[in-house]
């Protein structure tokens, strides 16, 4: 039995790059990365992007417990110009937590700093369910 949680984040409007702070109705506090339980499979199913042009990257680290975790890009969404873009993913970004230390985050890149907004639907699934 899986769970889909919708996360929301926005750029700060003053930096051309940065890491989204992600929040949700299911969360008490926003987080800067998401660390699933060991063995969980994560699928990022869809996204809604709005506001100024922005590229949103999905970045994953193999060890969030490291002093300075190293992230690699594993997915991207691109809003080419000001407006709104709704992406229904036929092929979601899939991530897997092998030993519980894996985590992912969303970062942004803009040619000119401005407010942009992102919403993603993330499915969490324990493998045996």
């Amino acid at each position: 039995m899986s769970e889909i949680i919708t996360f929301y984040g926005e750029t700060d409007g003053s930096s051309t790059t940065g890491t989204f702070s992600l929040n949700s109705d299911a969360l008490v506090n926003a987080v800067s990365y998401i660390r699933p339980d060991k063995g969980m499979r994560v699928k990022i199913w869809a996204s809604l992007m709005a506001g100024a042009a922005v590229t949103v990257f999905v970045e994953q680290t193999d060890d969030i417990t490291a002093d300075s975790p190293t992230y690699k890009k594993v997915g991207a969404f691109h809003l080419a110009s000001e407006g709104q873009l709704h992406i229904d993913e036929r092929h979601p970004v899939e991530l897997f937590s092998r030993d519980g230390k894996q985590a992912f985050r969303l970062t942004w890149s803009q040619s000119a700093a401005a407010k942009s907004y992102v919403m993603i639907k993330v499915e969490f699934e324990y493998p045996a369910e």
Partner: protein
Amino acid sequence: MTEGRVLDEHGFVKEGEHVLIVLPAYNTILPLRIKAIKNKEAEWWNYGPVPYTFSGYNEGEIKARSATSGFKFKDRTGRLTGEQAGDMFYHKKAEKLIHAYIDIRPHLFRIYREIPTGVKQVVYLDAVTFTTDVGDATADFGYTTGVVEQFFLPNFHIDWYVANWTNMDLKTNVMIKYAEYEVEIPRDAETIFSLMMRKVPAHWYTLPVTSKHSTIDRMFTEIYGFAEGRYGIPFYRSYEREKAISEIPEILKGVAI
């Protein structure tokens, strides 16, 4: 297909059908026949947040990378008294059986149980007992996820633990789908043996109890009325029909329902 005949569309045992509670620690079964469902077509209990509060959090908020201590589903109606005030599933009535599917959302948690309270029953190969310590390998087993089916038998409490291995402080909701059965113990030895041999369909449920406990002993003797030292019907072998037919009436002599 057996389950389809025995269970209704909600997963509850139909009136007239049987449930066999298997107790591994005792190598026995407790056969019960469902006489009535007291809440037919009214099976939801919209419970609300997990009834546990971490320091500095609101009730039901499960702290990141943390596990609750053991908790019970306390009564929120304000109408239950005594031990039932702290555990709405606790009862001491032989003729009652509560069958529940407990859905703790979001489905991101490891869910552990102590049956009865204070007893961690899952011990791998009699050597390693599970813990609920987030980050520790001893907490990597002994749990379930998703919706938990649970029968609430009389005379003992069950403690629940919710462990959140993610880095997110999560808000929770508990939806309970339950049936309050009126039950009786079938008296016919042939029927019981046939149930045990799976010749008569029934809903089999293993209460994950691998070590005996005095509260469960007393459930049999004080609540159901089995003789001292009798903790249900022995798990007869397929070739022990004659033995079963002769012994079962004596075992059931004096049971309350």
